[in-house]
Structure formats: C-alpha cells, structure tokens
C-alpha cells in the first residue's frame, strides 16, 4: 500500500507558496460577499482560502472556458481568405482543494473529450493539471455524491487527496504527479501513523453518515434503462422547466457548446466556442422553425436520459456526480434529485393492498 502522510496546517501556506513558484495555483476562495468559488491565486497572503465551504461552481471553466476563441480569420490576408488558430496559454496548474465531485467530473469529462477525437484545448489544459482533492467531511444539504459514488472521499483519480483532521491534513497519494510532489517537498510531509489512519477512517465514516438526502440512483438508472420514464413524468418536469440553461451551465459534466462567428471589422473576425444547453429551444430548433425536441415534453427528458442512461451506455457511469448544484439553482425545482426520486418511484412496484 502507498505510504500515507501528514501535512500540518501550519505548513499549508508555506507549501502552497512553494508550489506557486512553478505553477499557476487554483483554490477555493471566499469573496467579500461571503461566496466561495475556485479562483486563481495571485497574492497568497491576501487570498481568502476557504476549505470549509464547497465552492458554488465547479472547476469546469478552468478546463472549458465559458467562451473560447478557436481561430481568427482575415479576408484580406496575403493569400486572400486566411485562418489562424488561437492557442491560449495553458500554464502548469495545481488545482488545490478540489471537491471529490468536481474531480470526478474532470475524470468523466476526460472520457468525453479525450477518448476518441481529442479536443486540443481541453487536452492541453488537462495535461498541465495537478489535481489535489479535499475530501468532504461535511456534505451540504443538497449533496448526494454518496449515491453517484463520487464522494465524499475518493478511492482513486486524484494526484493527492487531503482529509482535514483538525490541526493537520491526512494525505493520500494517488498518481505519479502526486508522488512526485511529495518527493519534491518531502520536508513538509511526515509519515502518518496508525492513529492517523484510524482518525481519517472515522472522519470518512461520519461524513458518509451525514448526508441529509438519500436517493437511489441505481434504481432510477435501471428504471430508465428498462422502460424509460412515463410520459406523465416527462410532461410534469417539462412544464416546470423555464429553459434558462442554468442547470447545464452549473453542471460539472455538461460540455455541450455552440459556435459563433464574431465579426470584428470589415475584413476580420473570430470564431468563438461558447457553452450551450440542451434545455434551450435554440439548441435543436431548425432554420425553418421546426423543433424536433418538443419543448412541452422532451426538454428535460433529453437531459436526464443523457445523464442517467446514455452516459452509462457510452462510458459506463452516469454523468451526474451528485454535487447538488442544480438543486439550488432551478427556478422550477426540476433538478437531478427530483428526477432521480421520480424515476426511482416509477420503478418500484405498486404497494399491495392499496
């Protein structure tokens, strides 16, 4: 078994400061309004590192920017019409304090964007990433990563995984880059003893027992694979959807995009890739106005079928990581938790004697 280590909290900032010398550093920060987001660390001493609150957004935008220039074009170049690809810089980056759900989302996105036709921008950013997870000792009210098997602590996938043990972090090494990091900065890490292993086990055990919501994802997945949801269920969900796209934009594993050409002058411009969402009518509407996805019926069916059925078929796991971000954000309350509960409810046989 891989050696486990301890990192005293006193030594965290000094370690981050050293990591920052060779890397860009991204970590959860609390802003002046009390909201926590993953953010790039510029000045570590003025950075309000927040390891207690799960960030409001995932780390998706660091790997897939909301808007990305793919290439520029000129109509008056030396050879007439010409294109030049735009390669945004992708410096080596340490992502510190990634929540297990967010890290699992990155691993899932790898399956989508790196398996067959590789996405060059994503690949560059992904190759330069060191992923340091922070296990969730206190899941939020809307979290359900226990059901999606993406938390509150991970078994694999991280370079390093930290567990908060009060005055120190318990450090598990997952991949080669994590091992390298510990070797490079060895003085910061002490070997963990038997007591520490027990303490970490206790924290993980308590975290696993502290989820407020309990949903049966497997049952919902099976129901969807076997017979799909009922028409009444999809109609009810669709009637509550406002088509704002918020669920997809917040979702750590939603990667759909649209392309837009932006004219910057009479003879030049750029092609942008922007986030898009399948709940928007314009996502599938044809030029003549016909929409093959009936907004009154299909708008959320497509989303949940993709997440809970098609992803399983293609990649062997649902593309929901149980982060619960769609739960608080939906105007109509038609979030993943509601869908799972309704689908699982339809899978169960009717009670006898009713």
């Amino acid at each position: 078994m891989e050696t486990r280590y301890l990192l005293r909290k006193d030594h965290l900032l000094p370690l981050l400061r050293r990591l920052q010398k060779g890397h860009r550093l991204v970590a959860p920060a609390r802003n002046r309004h009390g909201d926590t987001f993953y953010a790039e660390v510029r000045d570590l001493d003025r950075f309000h590192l927040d390891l207690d609150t799960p960030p409001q957004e995932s780390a998706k935008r660091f790997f897939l920017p909301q808007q990305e220039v793919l290439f520029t074009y000129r109509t008056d170049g030396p050879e007439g019409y010409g294109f030049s690809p735009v390669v945004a810089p992708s410096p080596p980056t340490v992502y510190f304090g990634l929540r297990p759900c967010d890290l699992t989302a990155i691993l899932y996105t790898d399956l989508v964007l790196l398996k067959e036709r590789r996405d060059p921008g994503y690949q560059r950013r992904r190759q330069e990433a060191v992923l340091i997870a922070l296990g969730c000792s206190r899941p939020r009210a809307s979290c359900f990563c226990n059901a999606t098997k993406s938390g509150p602590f991970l078994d694999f996938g991280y370079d390093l995984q930290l567990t908060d043990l009060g005055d120190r972090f318990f450090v598990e090494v997952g991949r080669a880059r994590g091992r390298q990091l510990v070797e490079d900065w060895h003085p910061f890490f002490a070997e963990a003893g038997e007591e520490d292993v027990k303490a970490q086990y206790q924290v993980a055990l308590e975290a696993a027992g502290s989820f407020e919501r309990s949903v049966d994802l497997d049952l919902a997945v099976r129901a969807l694979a076997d017979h799909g949801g009922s028409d009444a269920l999809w109609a009810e969900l669709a009637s509550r959807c406002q088509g704002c796209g918020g669920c997809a934009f917040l979702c750590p594993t939603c990667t759909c995009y649209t392309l837009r050409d932006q004219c910057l002058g009479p003879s030049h411009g750029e092609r942008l890739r922007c986030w898009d969402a399948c709940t928007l009518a314009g996502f599938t509407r044809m030029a003549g106005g016909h929409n093959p996805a009936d907004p009154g019926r299909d708008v959320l069916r497509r989303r949940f079928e993709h997440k809970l059925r098609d992803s399983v078929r293609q990649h062997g796991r649902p593309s929901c990581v149980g982060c619960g971000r769609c739960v608080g954000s939906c105007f109509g309350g038609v979030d993943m938790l509601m869908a799972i509960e309704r689908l699982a409810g339809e899978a169960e046989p009717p009670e006898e004697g009713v």
Partner: protein
Amino acid sequence: MAGLATAFGSGAMTNSINEIEEAELILVAGSNTTEAHPQVGRRILQAVDRGARLIVIDPRLTALAARAHVHLALRPGTDIPLLNGMMRCMLDDNLADDLFIEMRTENFHALRDMLYRLDLDQVAAATGVELQSIRRAARLYAKARKAVLCYCLGVTQHVCGTANVETYANLALLAGKLEKEHTGVDPLRGQNNVQGACDMGALPGVLPGYQSVHDLAARGKFEAAWRTPLPAEPGLSLLDMTHGGPEGPVRGMLVVGENPMLSDPDLARVEETLRSLDCLAVSDIFLTETAALADVVFPAACFAEKTGTFTSSERRVQMVRQAVAPPGECRGDGDLVMALAGRMGVPFADASPAEVMEEIALLTPLYGGIYHDRLEEGWGLQWPCPDRSHPGTPFLHKGAFTRGRGRFVPTVHVPPAEQPDGDFPFTLITGRVYHHYHTGTMTRRCAALDRECREAVLEMNGGDAAALAIRAGERVRLVSRRGSLTLRAAVTGRMGPGQVYTSFHFTEAAVNRLLGAARDPSSHCPEYKVCAVRVEKVA
C-alpha cells in the same frame, strides 16, 4: 401604487418575497409569474409542492394557471365584478374576518351595502366565470391561515387599474389577510429598481418617500435643503408628456433609460410629439428607438459601471458596486445630472453616491437609516428603516396600517375603453415573454437570447385560428383602429376564444402602434391589456 396607498397608506409589497414559500394559499392575479418573475414563481411552485393551494386569476392559461387548484379565467378587464362576487360569497358564507374589520379597518358598511346589492348571476355573466368557481376561490382564500395575494400588470394596466387594486385590497381587508408574516398583498414590480425610482419621487405628485407636494411641511423641508422653491402642484404624467403633440405643454425633454418609442401606447402620437420638441436629449446604454430621434444622446454607464443602490419589489435596498470603468465617454446618471446642472447655471455640489444616500436618509423618513456603510455587508435593508439602529422591515403594517386603519373603497365595474365589435372582433392582450426585457434594449442585443426568441408571435386559440384558416407559424396581419402590423401566428391552448396575445419587445412588430391612449384617470397607467383588433391572413 395609488390604489394601495388609498387602502393601506403605502404602495408596495407588504411581504418579503421569501415569505411566499411559507404561505398556505397563494392568489395570483394578472401575473404570468413563472415567466415574468421567475424568482417569485419558484417560491410559488415550492409552496404548492409543500401543499399550498393556488388560485390564479388570469384570462390566459399560464403555466401557473395550469397548475392552479382554481383558475378563474375571467374576461379581460372584469376584475372588479369578479372580486366583488368573491367578497359577496364570503359574506354569504359568513367568512369575513369580523374582528379584523372592527379593529383595523374603516368604511366597511359602504362596501357591505354595495355587496348586498350585487347580483351574482350578473357577475358570472359579466366575467365569464362560473359562480361555483368564484365561490370555491372565496372559500379557499378566506379559510387559509396564511394567504398571500400577488398581483401584477394584468391588474393595473386597465382604465380602472387603480379601482382594480382597491378591489383586491378590499378582498384582503375583508378576509383579514394582512398585517402578518406570510400574509399580505404583494404587487410585483417589473424592473430591478422601479420601486426605487418611485421611492425617490419619480412620480408627478410626490417628493422622495411619497411626501406629497401638497404637504407644506414636507415641501418646506426640501426647499430648505435644496435652497430653491419647489412646485406646489403635481407635474405631468408620462402620457401627458409623450402624447402632448406639437402643441403639447412640454418643449424639451431629457429621457433617461426609457424607450417610449416602443413602450408607450399609440406610438404614432408619441413619435409626432417627440419629433416636434424643441430639444430631445436621451441618456441610454444603446441607441434605442427613442435615442434615434434625439438631438443629443448621452452614452450612459450600465449597472456594472456605476455605484449606488437598487430597491427591489420587496422594498429591499441593495448596493450596486462598480465592477468596471465606464467605456469611452459613458458616465453615471449622477455625474450626468450634475454636469447638466452646471451647464444650466445651477452648479450642484460635487457629491459621491454615498453622499447622495446621506441626503436621502436626511430628507426621506422611509430611508432614514439607510447608509452605504450599512449596505456593505449582508443582504441590504428593507424600508421603512427610520434610523441607523433599525434593522429594516420584512413585512408592513404590523399592528396597524401605515395610514392608521385600512380603508374599504367600494368599486363598480368600469368596462375597458374598447370592446370587441364586428370590425374588430378580438380582444388583444399585450405582455412580455420569458427571454426579453421591456423594449429589448439589452436583451435583443444578446446572441443567446436572440436565438431563443427572435420575433414577436401572436398567440391565438385553435378554434379561432381554424375559423380564419390560419395555420401555426403563418404570418398574419393584426389590425386595430390605429394601425396594423404583421407577425407570425402561434396556435396555443393558452388563449381563450376571442382573445389574442402578443409581446411589446419587438420594434419590427411594435404592438404599441395599435394600442389606444386610454388610461386610468388616477394613476395614468395606460390600458395595455385590452385592445379591440382583427386578425387577417396575409395574402
């Protein structure tokens, strides 16, 4: 505004938006809440999920109406007979809150006498709503312990808008559904800061904080602070100005962040008026239809480029902080007014937004304790907030109404200015769509929203469409007594027979060219919700 001020003494939401979640009954009138106020709509949906009852009063089968326990699909413009009918049912079932009426209200006898003269069969005939549904709604509303009444422009944008509001206030007073948490009367404001603009006296007859120009002491206070005499009579209403015509009373106009060339009724008259002005200046962030007619256009700073406060529907004053510098020659509203005053020979002392807020606190009792430093942390402050130690007021009229006692104002049916007839057999209702905001100055310039909703459509009932041989998606001509336009037809179950609906966001199909200038005599709010039209196939 005027209606609630008469009844309660204050024209704003009596509750906070979050209180709606805990209500046991929600009555929604003239509001397509899930589309127009999604943040309020989500709380209504949550309350209904938890078991709250929902009553919707709306001619259209909106998303909320489809979910309602009782949907009263009234004929447009018949709120007053419908509500009077509900109140009569409450009296008949002995469901009025007698103790509340005795302790907290006045003029009940006038209302009671009027209600006892009411013929309920005539109510059903006038409104097109079955008596049984009216009675059911009355019982649900009166019996609920915590009942919120939300209304919006479907109530106010009528020739009898003020009387409509007074009638809804009567209903709440009669049932004693006021003065408590999770219980009240809540007009939903359509813009981030329209409450704030009203609070600051952007109304013809009041100084900031609804202090009347007729109030000598209040006027004296402002005259002393501003060192200038102030008019003792109310100014002109919006339509008095934009419908004044070539001989109108106003010769020069400064329009700030408003687009009357799309938003006001009878656009031909508006255009004639604006073109005849000696000077038109417009301040906006984009070149609007109105700005295109201007002699001078001031490029304005947008919300992200200025510091100040917005006051939301629930009377909550919140900080807006400058995030980026205004581009080019753009400037904030305060800067612009001060610079203009200087050029007009009345130099204002240079004042920061925080200093302006201090002046507001000094002169406006509702805002007496609201200062920028108190807004830095937390979630703003809800007025009334009379002093620095006051925590703000989540719900109004606790213990007593602002005006003392809640006043019953008996009202009688006022038919819409224009009724459908042989030449114009349809009733046109105008409103908004989910994806666009007001005249589209911002939202129509956004690629994603433009992709979602690119043009105006005319929603009509399947039976009406079939009778005219109109297919869904076909272009049709919409004609009123004042003009015509073409747009695409959408055949939908949302509309009742004889009614059509479209939105006013689109300059290519500016529906306000069709609307008349009829308006409420008290609030001067135009009748946007009823217009007689006909629908023609485009050859």
